[in-house]
Structure formats: C-alpha cells, structure tokens
C-alpha cells in the first residue's frame, strides 16, 4: 500500500499541481501538450471512421468548422477511403484499420460513422484511447452494448454525442414544430398524465420500413477488390458476402442493424423521450403487431408497436406501410386533459397559445465543440442516447419474439424471457469484444 507521502503527492497531482499550466476549462489534447504532441493551435482535431454516405457528411461538417481540423479518415473499403481523402484537407492521413487511428494520440474527437455493429466497439475503444466521441445513430446494435458505452465514456471522462438532434434543433419531420414548445406544454401538465404519443406517418413521421428491409434467398457473391470484408464484418457473425448486406443497404440485416426502425427510430423517439421526460428510464411493457415469424437474417415490415412505461405513458409506433392503421386523425400526444395534433393544433385550442407563458426547458449544450471545450455533457449524450437507443431495440425484440415483453428498465433486461434476453445480449466474433 502506498504511504502517506505518496498520498499527499497523488492528491497534489489530482489538485492539478502537475498540470498547473493547463487551462481551467479547455483541455483538448493540443492544450494538454506533452512529449510528441504538435504545438498548441486553435484547432480541435478530428478523425472520421467510416466514409460511406454519412461519413462523407461528417467530413464535410468538420471541414466546415473553422475551429476543427480533420487529420485522419478510415475505411475498410479502399474506394471509400480514397473518396474521403479526396474531400479531406492536405495532411489528413488515410487508414484501413481504426486501431491505427486511435494509436496516433493526437486526435481529440473520433467520429464513428460505420454500420451500427461497430458503434459500441469503436466508441468504447475511442474513449479508452482518450478521445471524445461523435457517434452515428443508432447508438448500438444491441441493448447490452449500451451500458458498456456509458461505462467507457464516463470512466474515461469523455464527452459523447449521438448524431441526431431533434430534441434541441430543427422541426420534428412532418409534425410541424420543434421539440421545445411541445416539451413546455407537456412539462406544464396541461395535457394531464399519463400521455400517449403516436409516431406514425399520420402524425408526421415516415418509417421507411420497406426501404430498409433485407433480402432473403441471397446467393453468395465474390468480394469486390479493395474491400476488406472480414474487417467490415468485424464483431458480426461471418456470412458469405452479398453486396446487399453491406454498403448502403446493411440496415436491412439483423447482424448489423435493425431495419427502418433502427434507421429513423432514434431520430423520432429521442425527441419523444425528451418531451415526455423519460431520459432516465425505459418502457416496462412492449408489444408488436407485425408479420411473424421474422426472418433470422433479414429485417422486414411491421405495423404497430406499443411501448408502455411504468407510469402508464405509452409510445405507439405505426409504420403505415403494413397492416391496419389506427393513428389516422389521432393526436401526436394525448393526455386526459388535452391533445396535441400535427401542426401544433391543440384541443382545447387555447393550449397552443399558452406555450409562450410556460417555463423554458432546462438549457442544454447543443454545440458539441462546446462540450469538448467545457467537458460538460452534450444535449444528447451517452446516457439519454442509450435510453432512446433502447426504445428501438425493445421494439425490434417484440417484433422478433412475437409476444408481449416485460422489461426491467434498471437491470436493462427482459423479465422472465430468456429468448428475448439472448437477442438483447449477443457475443461478438473474436477477437472483437466490448470488455
């Protein structure tokens, strides 16, 4: 055991004596300095891992931020990597293996823009290598991966942002309003409690279910030159290559994602979770109405999913692309005392006008670079992001099992349902692992 003198030294260090030169609030890597680091500059350094369509969007985003500098891009497909390097500024290096990127030690923010089966793994690795993380949605591929990301981010003192924004910015798709006034109305209690929220094309939200369905009876194809398929699969089970399983259409396969629900789900449901104040918990009962059984490999259509919280609040998802529709002409949010319809029409009508009088929601940090600089949690971070991510996975579990599921939001496990729990926590293909 260390002695008293050591304790004093350690605590002195923790108080910052050893880092006296460090700025009080801004501590990105370039300021921390140290041997082997580039001299301090005004830029926050970024790496983008995964240079598909969304990855190129991230490259553009970093390029457009005057206080940021893109210094690494990474992809397992040489053609994607070449496209990324073409867009990147001079001096930016290209990599095929993300571990080499994380080995550099001069990157402040890692953008994880791969398919979702990599999201948790790379987020954890980035945090452990001392980077902040900007991760695409959905946050993880399974329920169990979520807590691992939280642990890694928090234990390593990192900041994390999930790449959806509707809780703090932009109109809620076809609903016709931002989330803020809806949050104010709900928080005021003027709609009463518990609430039912309907997320369907009729309330302004298209699910793209058929667009993101997988294919069955697929014939193996030769792997294209320049594409490292084994590294693309990474932690996912090995399956013979078929183009539709990969770039641009991977969302249709359970091994990598979760169909249209996982594509749009976190965009739509994160805002709902924020509005009805469920950032800290999850539904306790989930029931789906969908074609059944599901294919073991390919995601398919679904009709309606109802998720109920322990206080009676419900979120009803309706695809409008399969089966009956119940949400036509129904309100987006309905409570015992009032209703809120698409276009911010209310019943009673006076409620809409009252919003300007209601208290403002708690302020959030909505610029991730501010989070990086101040070390304060981003508006959509690893904790609330995990909860909205879980909504997507709970819905898919109900679709796949075809039965009403009960869920323990604290243990984050299904109750008395080993089948559902096996879907929620799946081992990874070696040598990939989250721990």
């Amino acid at each position: 055991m260390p002695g008293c003198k050591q304790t004093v030294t350690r605590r002195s260090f923790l108080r910052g004596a050893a880092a006296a030169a460090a700025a009080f609030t801004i501590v990105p890597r370039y300021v921390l300095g140290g041997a082997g680091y580039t001299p301090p500059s005004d830029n926050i350094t970024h790496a983008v891992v995964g240079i598909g369509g969304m990855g190129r969007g991230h490259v553009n985003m970093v390029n457009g931020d005057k206080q940021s500098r893109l210094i690494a891009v990474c992809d397992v497909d040489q053609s994607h990597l070449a496209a990324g390097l073409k867009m990147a500024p001079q001096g930016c290096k290209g990599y095929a293996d993300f571990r080499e990127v994380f080995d550099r030690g001069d990157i402040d923010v890692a953008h994880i823009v791969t398919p979702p089966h990599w999201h948790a793994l790379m987020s954890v690795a980035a945090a452990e290598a001392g980077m902040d993380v900007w991760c695409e949605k959905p946050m993880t591929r399974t329920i169990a991966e979520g807590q691992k990301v939280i642990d890694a981010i928090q234990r390593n003192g990192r900041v994390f942002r999930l790449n959806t924004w509707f809780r703090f910015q932009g109109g809620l798709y076809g609903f016709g309003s931002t989330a803020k006034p809806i949050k104010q109305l709900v928080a005021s209690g003027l709609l009463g409690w518990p609430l039912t929220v309907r997320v369907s094309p009729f309330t302004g939200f298209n699910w793209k279910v058929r667009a993101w369905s997988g294919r069955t009876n697929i014939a193996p194809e030769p792997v294209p030159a320049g594409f490292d398929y084994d590294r693309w699969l990474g932690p996912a089970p090995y399956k013979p290559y078929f183009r539709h399983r990969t770039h641009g259409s991977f969302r249709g396969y359970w091994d990598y994602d979760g169909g249209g629900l996982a594509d749009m789900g976190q965009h739509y449901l994160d805002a709902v979770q924020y509005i009805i104040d469920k950032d800290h918990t999850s539904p306790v009962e989930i029931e789906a109405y969908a074609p059944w059984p599901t294919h073991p490999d390919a995601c398919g259509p679904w009709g309606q999913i109802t998720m109920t919280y322990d206080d009676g609040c419900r979120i009803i998802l309706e695809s409008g692309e399969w089966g009956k529709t119940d949400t036509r002409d129904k309100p987006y949010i309905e409570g015992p005392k009032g209703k809120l319809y698409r276009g911010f029409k209310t019943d009673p009508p006076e409620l809409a006008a009252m919003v300007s009088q209601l208290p403002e929601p708690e302020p959030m940090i909505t610029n991730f670079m501010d989070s990086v600089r101040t070390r304060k949690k981003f508006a959509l971070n690893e904790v609330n992001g995990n909860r909205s991510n879980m909504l997507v996975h709970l819905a898919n579990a109900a679709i796949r099992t075809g039965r009403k599921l009960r869920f323990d939001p604290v243990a984050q496990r299904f109750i008395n349902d080993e089948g559902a729990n096996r879907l929620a926590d799946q081992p990874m293909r070696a040598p990939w692992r989250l721990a």
Partner: protein
Amino acid sequence: MNESDDRMGHHRKSRGAIAQVLPATLVVVAMVMAIAAAPAALAQSKVADIVAKMPAYDSATGQPMLDEILKLAPDGLKELCSLVTPPQKTDDAGARYAVHGLVLYTKRPGGQADRAKVEKALLDALAAAKDADLKVFFIEQLQLGGSDAAVDAIGALLGEERFCDPAAQALTRIGTPRCVELIRNALPDAKGKRLVTIVQALGALADKLSVKTILPYAADKDQTLRRTAWFSLANIGDASAVGALKAAANSTGRYERALGTKYYLLLASRLAEGGEKGEAEGICLELLDTRTDPADGNVVCAALYVLQEAVGDKAAGELLAALEGKNAYVREAAMEILPRVKSPAVTKKLIDKASAATGATKVALISVLGQCGDKAAVPVVMAAMDDKDPAVAAAAMQAAARLAPGDVLKLLTARMKSTDPAPIAAAKSVLAGLKADGFDKTVAAAMADASAPGKAALLGLLAARGATAQSKVVFGALEDSDQSVRAAAARALATVTVPADIGRVLAQMLAATDAGQQAAIQGVVVSLARKGPGPGCVLEALAKADAKQRPLLLGTLARIGGADGLAIVMKDLASGDAGTTDAAARALADWQGPEAIEPLLKLAGHTDNKVHHVLALRGIVRLVGRDANLPADKAVAILGKALAAAKQPAEKGLVIGALGGIRSTAALKLVAGCLDDAALREVAAAAAVKIACPARRQKGLTGPAVRKALGKVVSVSKNARAVEQARKYLKSMPAGK
C-alpha cells in the same frame, strides 16, 4: 401469384414429377411403403404447406401455425429442418422463417416442453448438414434457443476452423459449467485464430481454471492473441494476473497501452467484486501515482471510478482532491462520482471547501452537495443562494431545490416581493421544476405580498401547474391595478378553471376593458363551453346584453358553434338594425360549425353589403376547407354555389383557390370554366394543375375532361411552371385516358 403460392406450387410440381417417372412395377411397392409411412408423409405435406405460408400475417396467426408443426414432432420438425438448404440452392426462406420462429417461440416463458423438441431437431439437423453455411445456421439458432442438452454437440465443433467461432459464441451465450469445460478442453490443441477464439470465450466465461494456461499468452508476440489474453485474464479476475496486466498497462504504443490499462483496471474491478479490495485499490492508486502526464487524464478518471467502486468512502480523499483540480476531465469525473460517497465526513469536507471557495470551484462543490442529498449541506447551500456570483446563486438554487424543496419553496416565493426582474426570473425558473408538498397553496399565498412582476410570475406558475384549487386568487388578480398582472391572470384562467366556472369567467370577459385581456378570457369561455356546458351561459347573457356587449357575445357564440347559437345570430341578422346585423354577419362568418354553411351561402347570395359579401365567402371557404369529413362532391357543390355568388375577381379567385384543393373532376370542370376569363386565368390554371396532376403519393386524374382542361392550361396560361406540369402529365397520360 404471390411468393407463398409460388413456393406451394414448386412443392406440388416436384412430387408430381416423381410419380410420373416411377416404373409401373414399382408403383404398387411404393404405395405399400407410402401406407406404412403415412404419418411421416402427412407431416411432410402439412409442414410444406405451413412453410409456404411463412411469414404469417402476425404472431396471432403465426403461432398456431408453429403449434401445428410442433404437434407433428419429431417428423414434422425433421422435415422442416430438411427444407433449410445451403444459400440459394432452393427458395428456403419459408423454412428459415419457421425454424427461427420456432426457436424464439419455444423460448417463451412456459415453452420448455416444446423447446426440447425443437432443440433435438436442430441438433439432428446440425449433425446431418454437410454444407458449412448450413451447419452455421443451425449453430446460430442453437445460440438463441439451445440449452445444456446442446452443448456437447456444439463443443465438438470447436476444433474446426470454420465452426470454432460460431460454436464458441453459442457456448458463451448458453454459458453453463459444461460449456466452460468444453471450451477449456479445446484450449490445448487450439492454434492461430481458433486459439484467439477459445481464449476469448474462456475469458468471457471467467474460467479461473484456465488462468495458468492463458498467462503466457499475455506476452505473446502475436498482437491479437496477446490482447485477447489480457482481456481474459482481466475478466477472470485472478490476482495471479496482476503482474502480466501491469506490464500490459505499461506497453509502448498508445493504443496498446490504452488497452493494457483498460484491462488492468478491469482486473481491479473484478478483484474488488471478488473481495480482493486491497489488490484493487493498489492498482488504482498505482495508476493515479504514475499517470501524471496530463494526456492521461482519462486514465485518472477511470482509476477514480474503479477506486470508489472498490473501496467506497475511502476514496473520498482522492475524489475531493480531484474536484479542485485544474484538469477539467478529472474534475467532471469527480463531480460524477462524489455523490455516490454517502458519508457525513465527506459532506463536512465539501461544506468547508464550498464555504471558502469562489467561482467555478464553488459552483462545482455546491452542485455536488446538492446531488449528495445530505441535509447537513442545507445551510451552506441556502446561504449561497444570495452569492454575488450569479452562477453560484443559480447552482445553489438548484442544489437547494433537491435538498430541501419545502424550504426553497418558501424562500423563493418570498423573493417575489422584489421588483428586480433578475431574481424573480431566477426564482421562477427553479420553482417551475420544484416538486414540493403544498406548492400551489404556497404560491397562491405569496400573491398577497408580491410585487407586480412577482405576481405575474406566480400566476404563471399557477397556470403551468393547472392549479384549479387556487382559481380564486387568479380571479382576484383580474382586478389588479397593474395591467401586466391582469394580463397574466387572464392567461392563467385557461388552466386554473373548470367548466363550472364558466359563469364567472364570462362575467370577467364582459367586464374586461383591455382588448387583449378580453380576447384571452373569451378563449377560456369557449374552451369551457366546449368541455360540457355548451353555449347556454352565453345565450343567457345575450338575452340581457346591451348593444355594446352583443358583438362580443355573438363572437363568442361563433367560436363555440351549435344550432342554438346560430338561431340567435340569424335572428339578429334579420333585425334591420345596422349595428346588430353587422355583428351578426361577422359572427356568422366566423362560425365554427358546418351548420353555418347554408346561411352563409344565403348571405353571400342576397346581401348588398360588400363587406358582408366578402366575409360570407371567406366563411364558406374556411368551413369547407376545415371539414375533413365533407365528401368531395358536396364540397364542390357548395363551392360551386359560392363561385356563382362571387362578384369580384378577388372573390372568385378565393373560391377557385379552394376548389384547387379538391381532387375531383367536378372541381376541375368548375375551374376550367374560368380559364377563358383573363382576370381569373392564372389562378384557375394553377388550381387546374393542382387538381389534375399527380402529386406526392397521389395519382393524377384521368379522362377526357382532364385532358381538355390541361390542354387549355397549356394553351392559355403564362405560368411557366403550371404549363410545364400540365404538359408533362399530358405526355405521360396513357392514350385513351
């Protein structure tokens, strides 16, 4: 023919073809054999039929279908598994749906008996499968549905390169002691990628008996094996691995070092969980002592987390030191961790430090005190609410709201006496989120001594809570001498009143002198009337109203709607008194129910008053547009009459615009009739295109009338966009349509 029909047809064709090629001499023998094998054949036919219908419409229809297959076990299940073929050999999607469905279905609570049948069938199919991908499919299904009964068969595949990984994953997921034993037994012969897989699986299953065998791999030259061994040794949590993982944590190369450190800390966590807290503490303190490079801030954070988990309150010294540190990473981590330390001694230290601190450090300390939940912190936190630094004061208010909501409620409502908007806004912001007993009553009581801006804030709080029991205070505030208070009270009425209050609210509406306040209260009357009482109260007031009050009451009736009110309006409309008629016409034009459409058409057709004429047409267009249940033909008929009644081009344009929103040939004909009128041509062309051409998710109209109308648009309109749309659609329209 859909996909299912196609599959069923395929099976029928195969069996028919076999029958045709059988030599006649064998037919008798075959028939005898068929009779002997009748149950199996029946199962085969039934299973194939069910498979052809997969997936079912929903689980309610799919589960009975799977029950049918289960009833045919074991033959039916065997037949089902035989229908799964290597990728693309045949269309086996239906069989894959059914097998996967059975695996998840029988994993339901109470499905044990069926589960065993399915597991047995999967194991038989696994043994029989020759194709590697097919074998992997059955292993994956066993990973989801298998039990200890399956593990020996899966374990036997650990020695084969292609199957080792799926087998190891399945065994890891099933996770029984026998799984561990099977994987451990596979370790000595494993090489290359199989060795990595086996070592990882043993780590995931925390097999202590494998530590000695795995330890040498922690220094292996092969990077992948070395890193995997680190994980396994750490996750197993055996103290004999401390040295190996310490070396890993001190590796060169940033990623390797980060991994090694992560696993060194994971070992500390596992040791602590196993009761070896001293060892765990030693690892954490060692990292805190040695990772002094500021770039290792994340390691310091992680070590603090694990240290607190391992030794609890004993970590307070390090955490408090970190809280005052200059490294923001570490300070934020300390703020997150400290509230987990529930110790009076720690609270006392935090209080002492908070009392002496200033600026951001004080904000951090006050926030932590709020999260710790120790009431001993209440005095220092309450005192900080008056700090000159607004950031400290705000943090203190939030902290106090957590620690002592009742005290904060009294203190902050008392601050509403101030006339300074800043403290009022700060107090209101905290009160808005405060959960305290007697909230509404305390807020209402504070109205008595509050300043005007304070009263407005308190009324806002009552409104936001829908404090109906405190409506008396809100009614009282409607007579306040300050206009801003009266306005806030008028707004608050919407949520603090109930239908029984409608009489009082109506009286306030009539008494209000400010137009904005009156409009707000009118909204409340309308809302309350719609909740149940209806317009009776307004009608009663109308009976006694003077000429000044009448327009307001008629306007209120218009917003409530209904036949009773409409009758009064119609009577006023025919009164002959200019003022009364004008008020009635305006009320009619604003009417909220479809019952006003006919009277409005009548008004538009007969009135000489130009204003009333326009108002009537606007009213018609508004009512037709808002009634989603009005059939298109009726809507067109109404608008046709309105168009006939319209006199000025602007009036006609209003109606044509409304017709443009109805996708029917009748609407198109009306609109097309206006294309010859130079004053209406362009609005009619735009409406015609909107009615007839395809739009998002809507097909275009077809027929000779459509072709004629769009042709006319092309020839007469100067609106390039409309012409282009019409031309494009005409071109795409099938001949003869």
